[in-house]
């Protein structure tokens, strides 16, 4: 488990980084936090000839509030999302989800753009992006373009980014005040990798009815799945046990999990139901609570 040789570049601007990626094309990989890529490099399952280290591009690490958007640079550490009051105030779903991502030491180094670009089907942040209809801004030799999160994740470890593109910015719509969020996930055991998770955001009207609902599942298919059928069940309803149960059962309509080493496809479907119910109950109970410990 020693990396194969590679050329290493540490550009200090995004422009330089893009130029290097363009120059080396398929031979090059951008290196963000490295928490997913470096294990693959250590196992020689990835052997890029060139690594373009983005960690010196200070301009790529930022967290900014706009009128309707919370905007993150790709090199913003996951830890920044975790401790940011702005994130908690305007995108509570992110605040709920981040403590579930890896472990503290991983979040210190892991980046927003890295997790999204890696597109692990059981990663939390892609699920959040899909639930929130985030805008993914890609940058490359042909200029910038914006891809909706729902179209960004194509398959396991595959995104809509071209080889010479990088994720330049991630734009999360801000939640209206009173919006509630919860994130629930389950694995084979406690403290390990998540197998299935559900991200939920619900905006309640003054009568306590669901005015807007966003649900997405991770680990239940080759990419994060928006749970539209469950959302439809909830719209206009008060979050009661009956409707939560109905919506949770509807969640399986929009997922297509595969069996693997860790769990059967059937279990993953049932886990989607269970996590949908858990997230919705949490929201019904007040939502946006403190990030609870996973046990």
């Amino acid at each position, binding site marked *: *488990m*020693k*990396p*194969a*040789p*590679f*050329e*290493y570049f*540490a550009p200090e601007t995004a422009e330089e980084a893009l130029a290097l990626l363009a120059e080396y094309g398929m031979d090059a990989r951008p290196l963000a936090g*490295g*928490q997913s890529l*470096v*294990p693959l490099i*250590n*196992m020689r399952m990835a052997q890029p000839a060139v*690594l373009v*280290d983005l*960690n010196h591009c200070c301009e790529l690490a930022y967290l900014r509030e706009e009128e309707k958007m919370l905007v993150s640079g790709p090199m913003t550490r996951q*830890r920044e999302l975790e401790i940011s009051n702005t994130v908690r105030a305007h995108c509570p779903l992110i605040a709920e989800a981040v*403590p579930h991502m*890896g*472990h*503290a*030491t*991983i979040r*210190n*180094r892991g980046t927003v753009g890295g997790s999204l670009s890696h597109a692990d089907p059981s990663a939390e942040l892609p699920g959040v992006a899909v639930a929130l209809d985030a805008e993914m801004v890609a940058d490359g030799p042909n200029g910038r373009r914006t891809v909706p999160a729902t179209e960004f994740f194509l398959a396991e470890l595959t995104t809509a980014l071209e080889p010479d593109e990088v994720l330049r910015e991630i734009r999360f719509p801000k939640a209206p005040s009173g919006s509630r969020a919860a994130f629930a996930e389950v694995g084979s055991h*406690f*403290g390990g990798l998540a197998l299935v998770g559900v991200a939920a955001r619900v905006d309640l009207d003054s009568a306590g009815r669901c005015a807007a609902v966003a649900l997405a599942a991770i680990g239940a298919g080759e990419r994060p799945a928006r749970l539209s059928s469950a959302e439809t069940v909830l719209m206009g309803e008060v979050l009661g046990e009956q409707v939560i149960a109905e919506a949770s059962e509807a969640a399986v309509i929009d997922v297509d999990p595969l069996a693997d080493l860790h769990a059967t496809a059937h279990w993953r479907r049932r886990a989607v139901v269970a996590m949908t119910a858990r997230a919705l109950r949490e929201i019904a109970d007040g939502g946006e609570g403190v990030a609870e*410990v*996973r*046990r």
Partner: protein
Amino acid sequence: MTARRDVRVTVNGRAYTRNVEPRMLLVDFLRHECGLTGTHVGCAHGVCGACTILLDDVSIRSCLAFAVQAEGKEITTVEGLADGESPNALQRAFHENHALQCGYCTPGFLMSLTEFLRETPDPNEAQIRERLSGNLCRCTGYANIVRAVRAAARRPRDEDCAP
């Protein structure tokens, strides 16, 4: 073979300059170039946490970083915790509570907890266990590590666990 590069780092207050291949992992750099073998490799794929160090005071897995990425930075390893021969509060708490057996994972725990106790000086058990879940120990079953963290957190301020 790719072009070697100079890497200048400060580890536990001492400056090191070494000329290494870009592919050299930071943990190998610390262990074999700097001779600081207290940081251990348990998995080299970012799961076990045995290689945890502080890079500019932030805990990271040193098996998931390349030495060249540490250029110009300050590193603290387990060797930098004790004040000379005398262990710090966290190390003492580990000793008194039998929080280690084979000891191989221990440096990673100590480094992760050093940051944790700085940020969370008065943690509850759930917070402690959540933090510990990022490091694997195969010997202790964790109970005594939890006890040690509680004990270290209770020490008076002047015995702070910060390195």
